[in-house]
């Protein structure tokens, strides 16, 4: 289970409304390489992991991604909450405003709503961890593109840089977990046989 902590993982205080930036940053909320997808991917894959380290790392990184989801949502909210209709129109957000007002809706920058089709649970721990490594790299690349687009706004830049760095740490930890799983699966199998009691208690 989870307990909510009434604080952000990293502080966010954005002084200037800028719906143009919100329009692209929302991709890390509900887009294909966003935090919601990351969290659901790891928290769903953890059930099938064969060793303790991999279960733990998926559980704990999946949890941290929820904190990042809250951060990205906070950025989008603070960038749009006081936007005028003119600012919304000029940012190309008329369609978004029609459907969602200035609520924070999980969608990609392109407007495609969040879908679980952006993540996989393959029933194969190696395939799943390889996907997780790629997901961290794609999220890092997305943050770098957003950092290019937000270069003039230090209040937004600072938390984006923080989030980018977290992707790098997660990539490192997933690599170590993958190595552990590969070692575990390469171990020789041996079978226990209790020779003292070969009788079965059932009546079949």
């Amino acid at each position, binding site marked *: 289970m989870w*307990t*909510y*902590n*009434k*604080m*952000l*993982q*990293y*502080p*966010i*205080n*954005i*002084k*200037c*409304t800028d719906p143009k930036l919100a329009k692209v940053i929302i991709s890390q909320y509900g887009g294909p390489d966003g935090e919601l997808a990351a969290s659901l991917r790891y928290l769903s894959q953890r059930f099938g992991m064969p060793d303790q*380290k991999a279960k*733990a*790392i998926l559980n*704990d*990184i999946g949890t*941290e991604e929820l904190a990042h989801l*809250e951060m990205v*949502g*906070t950025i989008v*909210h*603070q960038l749009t*909450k*006081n936007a005028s209709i003119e600012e919304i129109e000029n940012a190309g957000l008329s369609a978004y405003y029609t459907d969602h007002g200035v609520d924070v809706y999980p969608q990609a920058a392109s407007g495609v709503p969040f879908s679980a089709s952006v993540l996989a649970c393959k029933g194969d721990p190696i395939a799943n961890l390889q996907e997780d490594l790629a997901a961290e790299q794609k999220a890092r690349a997305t943050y770098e593109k957003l950092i290019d687009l937000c270069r003039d706004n230090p*209040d937004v830049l600072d938390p984006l840089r923080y989030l980018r760095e977290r992707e790098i*740490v*997660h990539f490192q*930890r997933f690599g*170590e*977990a993958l190595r*552990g799983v590969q070692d575990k699966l390469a171990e020789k199998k041996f079978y226990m046989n209790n020779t003292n009691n070969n009788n079965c208690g059932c009546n079949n």
Partner: protein
Amino acid sequence: MLLNENRNCSCNNMNNDNEDEGRRIDCERKEELLQNIRCHEFAINELALYLDTHPEDRKALCLHKKYCNELKNLRDMYQKVYGPLTITYPCNKWRWLEEPWPWEGGEN
């Protein structure tokens, strides 16, 4: 719940702390303490992820323990004055609603 049901509680659990003492909100002090808590939470999370794949690292384990103990004190200190950080903190009145939510920062 009946409309006119008495919802007062006669137990003595509400009188055993002085949480309202010293509740003068000093915003600078509050933010400083919160930032210190955030730093500890971050360090603990970072060490936890590392320990997940390096459980034998005694140095990391020792640091983790140190920060956890410090965090406990900092959280107690913060919550006593500025209100609960989680719903597991006991209050004499429902202070969970009093402080702004984390996404409500910014000055615009």
